[in-house]
């Protein structure tokens, strides 16, 4: 009896779906549009976060040593810094490399080049360029170097103070952009829920006379509600599937532009899409199914009161 009823409920839901084709199409279109807008925002957030990561990775802390400091002393500091858990990479730039870089940088400024020639010795000291896993750790690097009295005496003045200001500013911007991005996504998700709930309510409303007839011929509430609930699952499933297809196309077509913006990096929307497929579409499908089932059950309940 249970399986007979279930098979009939499934049969009726497919029948309703096909025979009310335009209503089904409109409902699915709305589901696709709302899901796609949320997915697009997820993509935009991912691109923004990646862009921020790239910018962050370009900012580093340079520890400038006094010209008299020996290579062994610098390497001792380097080894010490490498043991810190938040340090990703430490690059050693010797004073001669630093001078070459400086000359290269100011090759169009004859005045500076002339001044450098006037000096007998290389005025620059060795430098350690430190990258950390996140910008918040830059201050920790500075603190770690200054906390060690043996190292502090080797450092040339306040060489990293200017960077810390930029890092702090960048950190604030990154956090704010990320918060705004996810806030907008959440706002769109709420709008999507409202739109979908109302679309389903309207779809059920168009069937209210049918529901009354079903009741009159002795259909139980479960038998009446069943096909509508299952139909909403079909809507959710097809809507999510189309949204995935659209997102795939979106990723394929926009990846060249994203690479152009971000430069050569390991990030692509298509890669992000596949890496997070379960999380994005699994979550969206589950969410939309729950919303559809709840909205359908509530909407039909209104017409099922005896």
């Amino acid at each position, binding site marked *: *009896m249970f399986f007979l*009823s279930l098979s009939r409920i499934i049969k009726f839901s497919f*029948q309703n779906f096909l025979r009310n084709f335009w209503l089904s199409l409109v409902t699915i279109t709305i589901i696709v549009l709302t899901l796609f807008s949320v997915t697009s925002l997820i993509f935009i957030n991912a691109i923004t976060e990646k862009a921020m990561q790239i910018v962050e990775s370009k900012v580093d802390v340079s520890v400038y040593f006094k010209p008299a400091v020996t290579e062994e002393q610098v390497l001792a500091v380097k080894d010490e810094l490498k043991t810190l858990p938040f340090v990703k990479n430490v690059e050693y730039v010797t004073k001669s490399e630093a001078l070459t870089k400086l000359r290269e940088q100011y090759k169009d400024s004859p005045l500076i080049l002339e001044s450098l020639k006037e000096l007998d010795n290389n005025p620059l000291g060795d430098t350690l360029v430190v990258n950390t896993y996140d910008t918040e750790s830059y201050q920790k690097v500075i603190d770690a170097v200054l906390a060690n009295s043996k190292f502090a005496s080797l450092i040339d003045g306040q060489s990293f103070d200017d960077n810390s200001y930029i890092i702090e500013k960048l950190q604030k911007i990154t956090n704010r952009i990320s918060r705004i991005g996810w806030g907008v996504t959440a706002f769109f998700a709420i709008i999507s829920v409202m739109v979908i709930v109302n679309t389903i309510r309207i779809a059920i409303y168009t069937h209210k006379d049918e529901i009354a*007839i079903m009741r009159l*011929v*002795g*259909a*139980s509430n479960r038998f009446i509600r069943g096909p509508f609930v299952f139909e909403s699952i079909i809507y959710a499933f097809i809507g999510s599937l189309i949204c995935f297809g659209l997102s795939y196309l979106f990723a394929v077509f926009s990846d060249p532009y994203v690479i152009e913006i971000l430069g050569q990096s390991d990030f692509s929307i298509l890669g992000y899409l596949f890496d997070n497929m379960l999380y994005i579409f699994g979550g969206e499908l589950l969410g939309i199914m729950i919303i559809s089932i709840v909205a359908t059950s509530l909407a039909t309940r209104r017409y099922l009161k*005896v």
Partner: protein
Amino acid sequence: MVRFKNVSKIYQGHQTALKDINLHITPGEFVSIVGQSGTGKTTMVKLMLAEERPSSGKIIIGGWDIGDIKSREIPSLRRQIGVVFQDFKLLPNKTLFENVAFALEVGGEQQEKIDEIVPQVLRIVGLESKMNRFPRQISGGEQQRVVVARSLAHRPKILVADEPTGNLDSINSRDIIDLLKKINDFGTTVILVTHNREIVNDLTRRVITIENGVIVSDQARGKYIL
């Protein structure tokens, strides 16, 4: 079969639809309930289908007491009563076959049985050849015949017809009444609610007349007296 004992129905706003109704309809009877619009005829039908509950009194249909019936028992009650309405009430997205079959499917009838019964009842109402059409593809008279076929599908003991000819011309009305008589001849109790004088007078069966929610006449072989 159908018993009303001191039944009154007062709607919200203190509007009295039925007042102290007493009647007993025995199995196999053909009863016409007549009266002008707004006298409480349709309220009686709603009470019989448990769409409404009596404000006081007792209604017994088959083994059920409508005043105490549980919500989950209502579908079973409705499967025991065939219903024909003025406005046809067919499911627009189902074919004639599917409309009739639906009444059986809701009761969990096996598919083989449905495939056997539905063409039979559609043959009784003369629409077997049109069973794959949709309601919009047939006339009003034909639609009402499908409703009669649907009401017969689960072989109900009682058939309630509420103004079944209200939207039909005289020829189609005659066809429907002939069908109801045929169904009654098979042993089904028929309760016809109408204000069609001509039909009631031609039937020469039991007539219960209601006026302002009160039974004013109950005649074994009655006429339309209002």
